């Protein structure tokens, strides 16, 4: 479904991604783990077209999308929960969610999805008229995830969704990820610091270091890998 071929991305002269090759199959959950500054966020931004690659290809369903504008890419069904949440601060929760469904025309469907999201995160329902900017860190994170779901994406990119969330909620979120993957067949590309949980959720994983993919394997194998255990799992 998604394929990165020898992607190189730069910030000015700093090369953030080096010859990245990643493949995501339809219906999969894959995870990308790596230390701070490894280039995980950059990978997602490259896929979304916000930071286009200098060379290499990004194929989505076989079509190259690396030269398209972000809005075109979103239209093709790729949504992202960005790092830092990027809530629209002056809009209320409801309006923020509505923005998530910007490209959708089916009013009823949107309404339905919004109800669904409020069910998932009742605190958002309680705060629904509050400006997004005033929410607590965790509430914002829930809002960001919900907003991405509002687009009914075919491919969901999640950048550290557990950041700043209470333990209870983290587990809940990973349940939700599994659920939407199973029920609506949404493909999920998960970037996570909490490698333990991420690998338990995902089918396959990639490990990134200094802008390069150094390892890719099934989740079970990665979890069992001694190196990984030492470097990322804190065991």
């Amino acid at each position, binding site marked *: 479904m998604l394929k990165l071929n020898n992607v190189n991305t730069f910030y000015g002269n700093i090369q953030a991604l080096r010859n990245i090759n990643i493949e995501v199959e339809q219906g999969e959950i894959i995870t990308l*783990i790596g*230390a*701070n*500054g490894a280039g995980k966020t950059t990978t997602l931004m490259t896929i979304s077209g916000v930071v286009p690659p200098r060379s290499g290809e990004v194929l989505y369903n076989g079509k190259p999308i690396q030269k398209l504008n972000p809005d075109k890419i979103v239209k093709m069904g790729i949504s992202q929960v960005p790092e*830092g949440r990027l809530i629209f601060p002056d809009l209320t929760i409801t309006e923020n969610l509505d923005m998530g469904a910007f490209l959708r025309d089916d009013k009823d469907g949107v309404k339905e999805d919004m109800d669904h999201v409020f069910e998932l995160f009742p*605190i958002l329902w309680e*705060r629904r008229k*509050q400006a997004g900017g*005033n*929410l*607590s*860190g*965790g*509430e914002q*994170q*829930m809002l960001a995830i919900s907003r991405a779901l509002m687009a009914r994406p075919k491919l969901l990119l999640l950048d*550290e969704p557990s*950041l*700043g*969330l*209470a*333990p*209870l*909620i*983290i*587990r809940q979120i990973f349940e939700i990820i599994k659920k939407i993957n199973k029920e609506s067949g949404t493909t999920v590309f998960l970037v996570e*610091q*909490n*490698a*333990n*949980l991420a690998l338990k959720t995902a089918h396959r994983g990639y490990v990134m270091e200094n802008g390069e993919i150094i390892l890719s394997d099934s989740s079970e194998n990665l979890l069992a890998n001694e190196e990984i255990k*030492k*470097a*990322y*799992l*804190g*065991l």
Partner: protein
Amino acid sequence: MSNERRTVLEVKGVCKDFGGLRALDDVDLDVKEGEIVALIGPNGAGKTTFFNCITGIYSPTFGDVNIDPLGGGFQRINGLKTNKITELGMARTFQNIRLFPSMSVIENVMIGCHCRTKATFLGAIFRDPRTKREERETILKSYELLKELGLDQFSDELACNLPYGAQRRLEIARALATDPFLLLLDEPAAGMNPQETLELEDLIVAIKEKHNISVLLIEHDMKMVMSLSDRLFVLEYGREIAHGTPQEVSENPAVIKAYLGEDLDA
């Protein structure tokens, strides 16, 4: 275990309203000399708001915030300006990192020294020996702090170019530069992987010992909280639902229900 220790921060009955929303409701909390106290609770419980209230970014609707940095009796600090409170010895880090992005790493720390130095603009212009010495001492002190937090190799880098984890540590270094008696850390381990979190734990303990300060900590990483803190306070919907030692709190059914969930290996 620490009953004889002196209380340095004492918060009594603090409330904070945002329009109709009561974000903090009658919260009591105290920190003793040399202690690490953690504040936990579900998202939106009011932890950050609590920090904001005691550091002067918000002023509490009701309640008292008292401090006693030197053992000379309590001083009420409600409604003081943030910079005044920092001068009195409370320093904090931010949940959403707020460094000075286009200043170098060492300059960030030097800003922290600002309130402990005196040079006026006349001094800056004439560069009298005292100003010169003060400036040099500031640089040296900042550099030492960077070293302590393992940031010395970045000292000339712009703060915005630092990896996330390093930025979090830089915030701590900057806060330490204000010579606080109490350090307030808002989710210092957010965005770090388990390995990095472990290293951070050691760092916090080392800092506490070296600078002889107390620490008040907000964190969602239970492993870290449990192993690091002497005491815990738990908030939910702005109310305090429990406090005590890690052991006590982690067995408290209300806390498990509201916050931890059934098993603890998250």
